[in-house]
């Protein structure tokens, strides 16, 4: 059998969602994964938003390998040994409106690919696709080793550094400015310790974001998610900043782990997994035309990632784009036309699945988040002000405004502060 309706390259959330949606509609689908099993190459990520999963599996989305439902969100600004934290308590686990959950990608991706297999997609693992088969500008298959397999449409779901989107000519090579680098450790604790230390119930968990000291005030941040009996802890930094400041991300990670705000959570834990990953930088880098003759790109491969600074989204947009691509292929089959012109309705399908509207709406966020002061001056300023407000040592207490003015000295001007505030509010 060397011909399928559709070949999907990469069994991550985007690829498996596309394969599932198409196989369910009766398409013959070949889903090819390079790793030994789906998820083995996709160790990053930690929190997944619920809504796309509910759309893909309305009946039984809760069967996904969910670690804990996120019931509390914290943003901490770190400076020195101090931290200013904003805490938000969200819905409790019982609610059907629960917004997000934590997951171990290894298990989640495996589960999603299994679902695709159950409805008839052929999931092949441990095979690396070497090249696309292209003739007269039309993609018509893939080559792996000496083997060629053909299909009407090839869907590239090969992640952030997608070589197939490049080979199909719809995406230029990545430049360092466009990517962030992330490292993540899974630190094993016990179920009880997680519940005690984070003050959460059995299936409940937290999602924490950190900026400031964590990146040594470079652009980026840290995160902590609680799993069943472990935490996922990581640091993400703009790769350009890393190289211009000659900083090693591993070093930042080590120091982050020693910060008192983190130490209290992970003390006595054991690192059971370490991973590093590239992350496409910010929504606007999305490929303007994620399609070509006989070809579509989904998920990270198409740059569908959205970072607001306080939330980080990739998996949900990946799933939605996979579903959108399936719609597009379905419509193309109805008219038996897989040319770029026919597949251009992908943009429409992306919009109706909410992928594009989100990316367009938040298009301004990246430039605001590019502002280095968010990662340096502000965390220092806030921690400094609160530190002075709450330090009672018998000396003369100053008024709040005075403290603020003093702390701002040399860090930021009042004009800049006003401008940043305005810009930030507008872009979010």
């Amino acid at each position, binding site marked *: 059998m060397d011909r399928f309706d559709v070949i999907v390259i990469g069994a991550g959330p985007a690829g498996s969602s596309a394969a599932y949606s198409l196989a369910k509609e009766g398409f013959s689908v070949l889903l090819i994964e390079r790793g030994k099993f789906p998820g083995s190459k996709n160790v990053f990520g930690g929190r997944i938003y619920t809504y796309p999963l509910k759309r893909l599996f309305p009946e039984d989305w809760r069967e996904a390998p969910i670690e804990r439902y996120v019931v509390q969100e914290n943003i901490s600004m770190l400076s020195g040994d101090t931290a200013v934290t904003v805490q938000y308590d969200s819905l409790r686990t019982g609610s059907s409106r629960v917004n997000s959950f934590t997951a171990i990608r290894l298990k989640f991706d495996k589960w999603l690919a299994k679902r695709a297999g159950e409805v008839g997609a052929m999931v092949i693992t441990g095979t690396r696709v070497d090249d696309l088969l292209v003739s007269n500008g039309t993609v018509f298959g893939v080559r*792996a080793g000496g*083997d060629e*397999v053909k299909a009407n449409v090839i869907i590239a779901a090969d992640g952030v550094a997608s070589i197939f989107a490049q080979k199909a000519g719809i995406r230029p090579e990545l430049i360092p400015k466009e990517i962030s680098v992330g490292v993540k450790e899974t630190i094993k604790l016990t179920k009880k310790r997680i519940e005690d230390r984070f003050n959460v119930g059995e299936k409940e968990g937290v999602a924490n974001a950190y900026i400031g000291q964590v990146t040594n005030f470079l652009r980026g941040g840290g995160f902590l998610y609680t799993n069943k009996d472990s935490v996922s802890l990581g640091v993400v930094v703009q790769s350009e900043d890393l190289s211009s400041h000659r900083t090693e991300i591993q070093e930042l990670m080590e120091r982050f782990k020693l910060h008192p705000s983190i130490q209290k959570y992970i003390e006595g834990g054991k690192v059971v997994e370490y991973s590093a990953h590239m992350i496409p930088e910010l929504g606007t880098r999305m490929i303007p035309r994620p399609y070509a003759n006989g070809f579509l790109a989904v998920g990270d491969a198409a740059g569908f990632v959205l970072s607001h600074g306080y939330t980080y989204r990739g998996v949900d947009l990946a799933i939605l784009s996979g579903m959108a691509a399936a719609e597009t292929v379905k419509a193309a089959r109805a008219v038996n036309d897989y040319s770029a012109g026919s597949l251009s309705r992908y943009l429409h399908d992306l919009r109706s699945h909410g992928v594009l509207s989100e990316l367009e709406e938040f298009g301004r966020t990246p430039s605001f988040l590019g502002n280095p002061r968010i990662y340096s001056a502000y965390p220092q300023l806030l921690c400094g002000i609160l530190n002075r407000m709450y330090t009672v040592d018998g000396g003369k207490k100053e008024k709040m405004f005075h403290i603020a003015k003093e702390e701002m000295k040399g860090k930021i001007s009042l004009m800049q502060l006003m401008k940043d505030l305005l810009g930030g509010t507008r872009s979010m």
Partner: protein
Amino acid sequence: MPESSELRMVVCIKQVPKAEQLKIDPVKKTLVREGVESEINPSDLHALEMALQLKDKHGGSLLALSMGPPRFIQALETAIGMGADEGILLSDRALGGSDTLPTSHALSKAVEHLGDFDIIFCGEETTDSSTGHVGPGMAANLDLPQLTYVVEVEVRDGHVRAKRAVEDGFEVWETTLPLVITVNHGCNHPREPTLLGKIKARTIGIIDDVNADDVGLDKEKIGLSGSPTVVDKIETVELPDRSGRIYSGEAREAVTKLLDDLEAEGII
């Protein structure tokens, strides 16, 4: 001897826990097989490769045969991915706990059930028990000649010429078809499964519904009751801690320092 030069071959393969993940249940004194990664027994892969090379040269057919629980399907899919024509799994709860005697018996019966073969291949031994009994056991059961620890094989006019590894070198033997060959570990480079091979494995599927009755096994002769081996005691060797010192810097200096330390501590 078949009419044409085409060979009818079967390779017996087993899925074993990955060597580096071997663990022993301290109470049951058996290998822990659940929750550890598994692989095709390495010398079985060499047997597969040897058979595939003969198939490439002479044509014919190659069956992959395994005995074990349903998860062994994975190993048979890999075998088809590499080029075997079919995969057959003999699976029956009654076979659980079999040692090498009932295993050789069951596999011999399965081979008889599947038809006539020119060559029956096995790996020299499995990494999970290292007995090397099963191949020779099958030869005895089937009353066939056997060549063990084979590193090279050649078939001509119904004759087989094989080079086998022995303690202090190699021996070259010749015999007639049909026969049993057990293949020496490390004698060739097993090929990777191909994409089309994997697709074929999925498309044709594994014949996994062959049970003890189908091949005519006597229930008394298989499983725990048919196994004379009794594991009396298992001892694991505790390795001493490594001192974990790293000598870095200029190679000459580092080596000199290492030698000095080894001498000072009376090791050399």
